[in-house]
């Protein structure tokens, strides 16, 4: 038998499961060892250790009404539940809960694309819709809009946005939460709330104006445990006519400062809208480089590129190589050559970094990422590069753990993510070393004023601790909200460091 939720008797748990079965159908409640084991986090850094977070059961509703019913039962019986979308948030917890003994609320069966409006360029989807699903829906209907996929295309459009994920096409679409417009959420007491213009009966603008009137609450449901999101709207990009990119190289280490200033100017003017790639001057000196991708009408982006090229060429010694303009839709030949996510096409090629290869015939299998936000400046890049180099030996105790970093991610405007990746497998001792290294990076980064944008479940408390201004005033505010919205603390206990009152450490 799987574990019980802490503090819940077998009798109460059996009653809960029986009522869940009535609510969603017996085939959609999973309580056997074999079935519940499928909800383990395959990339858990605690795999096989007593601290590994495990579910007690899983319930898979197919509709908002069934989610409401499950929430009411859980709320009445004080059963902890943990909503997942497609459950593929690997490296950030997968389908396992942050609080062992939770019942996973598996929303994969809620997989309807409710609407794609080509003229308005938006979609309304349920949590079980993956990027593959939405892409197929759009292409099967010949609609001329793009989605913005993250690296792995099997993830949930809603889940990725709610966890703070990003993609690889043009801004603002690649900021997935930022590109959303309107939500439907189910509260712990089973009540349904629609946000923004969705709160207006008969509204015709739910996916067209995200603000509505009055306090905007959507942000409360990002990386949170205040409610269960059952619908979400997203703005889509009308297919751009063309794409062009340039590679910019500068010769000296300090030249990264004017290179980033120029790039920022162009991005903040919205003359460059693609996701920039940064080539780092590792080793303490040498060349830096960046890519300058632009989406839009051919005649316009040729002029934008000419403007960008001239700006970069003001940096002494800079070279700018403008690539071939690519018109869309892609030809079959282009399809075989481009990085597909840059063209709104979901795929799973990113997993090649984890799977067997001639260079790495025995990979660990999984990974986790430490990903602090740093300033989007040359000075910021230089400081983080030196920080990583200067502290790597201490963090790893002088051992080669296979840690990879830093990779500078540019999914968002105005800041950078400095990603450090840790291989995670089934070797308990290696995983322990990875955890120690991860924790040390969190501590060292916080000393510099850097903190993560997103966290693996195993480190959510540590990361939340770094947001500590004014004696953790932000955490206390979040706890006040949690107690008000979910007084029995049933939803996603511990997610991103927010615990319900009865589980809070004093």
């Amino acid at each position: 038998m799987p574990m019980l939720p802490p503090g819940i008797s077998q009798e109460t748990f059996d009653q809960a499961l029986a009522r869940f079965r009535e609510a969603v159908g017996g085939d959609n409640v999973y309580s056997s060892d074999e079935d519940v084991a499928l909800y383990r986090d395959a990339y858990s850094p605690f795999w096989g250790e007593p601290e590994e977070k495990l579910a007690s059961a899983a319930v898979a509703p197919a509709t908002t009404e069934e989610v409401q019913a499950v929430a009411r039962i859980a709320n009445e019986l004080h059963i902890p539940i943990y909503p997942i979308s497609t459950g593929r948030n690997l490296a950030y917890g997968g389908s396992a809960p942050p609080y062992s003994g939770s019942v996973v609320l598996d929303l994969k069966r809620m997989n309807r694309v409710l609407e794609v409006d080509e003229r308005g360029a938006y979609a309304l989807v349920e949590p079980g819709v993956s990027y593959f699903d939405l892409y197929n829906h759009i292409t099967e209907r010949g609609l001329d809009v793009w989605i913005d996929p993250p690296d792995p295309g099997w993830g949930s459009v809603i889940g990725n946005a709610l966890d703070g994920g990003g993609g690889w096409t043009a801004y603002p679409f690649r900021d997935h939460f930022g590109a959303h417009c309107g939500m439907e959420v189910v509260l712990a007491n089973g009540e349904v709330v629609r946000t923004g213009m969705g709160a207006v009966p008969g509204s015709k603008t739910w996916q067209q104006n995200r603000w509505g009137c009055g306090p905007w609450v959507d942000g409360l449901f990002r990386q949170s445990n205040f409610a269960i999101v059952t619908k979400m709207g997203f703005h889509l990009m009308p297919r751009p006519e063309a794409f062009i990119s340039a590679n910019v190289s500068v010769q000296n280490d300090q030249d990264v400062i004017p290179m980033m200033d120029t790039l920022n100017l162009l991005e903040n003017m919205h003359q460059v809208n693609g996701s920039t790639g940064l080539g780092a001057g590792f080793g303490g000196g040498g060349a830096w480089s960046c890519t300058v991708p632009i989406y839009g009408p051919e005649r316009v982006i040729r002029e934008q590129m000419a403007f960008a090229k001239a700006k970069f060429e003001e940096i002494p010694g800079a070279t700018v190589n403008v690539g071939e303009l690519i018109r869309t839709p892609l030809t079959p030949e282009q399809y075989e050559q481009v990085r597909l996510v840059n063209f709104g096409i979901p795929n799973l090629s990113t997993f090649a970094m984890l799977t067997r290869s001639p260079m790495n015939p025995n990979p660990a299998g999984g990974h986790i990422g430490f990903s602090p936000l740093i300033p989007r400046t040359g000075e910021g890049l230089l400081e983080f590069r030196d920080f990583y180099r200067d502290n790597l030996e201490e963090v790893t105790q002088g051992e080669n753990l296979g840690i990879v970093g830093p990779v500078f991610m540019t999914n968002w405007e105005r800041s950078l993510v400095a990603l450090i990746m840790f291989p995670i497998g089934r070797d308990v001792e290696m995983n322990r070393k990875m955890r120690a290294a991860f924790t040390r990076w969190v501590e060292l980064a916080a000393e510099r004023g850097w903190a993560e944008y997103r966290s693996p479940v195993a480190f959510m408390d540590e990361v939340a601790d770094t947001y500590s201004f004014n004696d953790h005033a932000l955490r206390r505010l979040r706890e006040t909200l949690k107690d008000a919205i979910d007084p029995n603390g049933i939803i996603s206990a511990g997610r991103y460091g927010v615990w319900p009152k009865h589980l809070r450490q004093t």
Partner: protein
Amino acid sequence: MSMTKIAFAGALGCAVLAGSALAQQALPIPPLQHAVPSDGLNAAQMRGQDVFRTTCEHCHGPGRGMPGTSSLAVKYQDTAPAIPALIEERTDLTPELVEFFVRNGSGAMAPYRKTEVSDDQLADLAAYLSRPRP
């Protein structure tokens, strides 16, 4: 290697394109290539092939950017007799082996829950991948 090249939007037909003002745009649906045609499959195998194309092919298909295929190519590079990297082309798979890997995963491949691949779908997938070959 048998391989069927699927033309852009070729499988869509005209009906699904007709509703759009931009219906003349032929948009790509990945993956563009399937390793095995559907000819000669029985009903269960056909359903299993659909499961494969929906769930497995993005990693275990032919062509570039297929980590499952490239990983197995390394794994079996020195195996005699040779084992194809494309699991659809293997003749040594049993239903039990297919079910084991889907429910247990392997390396970077996480297990598939029953909400992703139901037991019935898994049985069809197993029937497809273990089908007798001429």
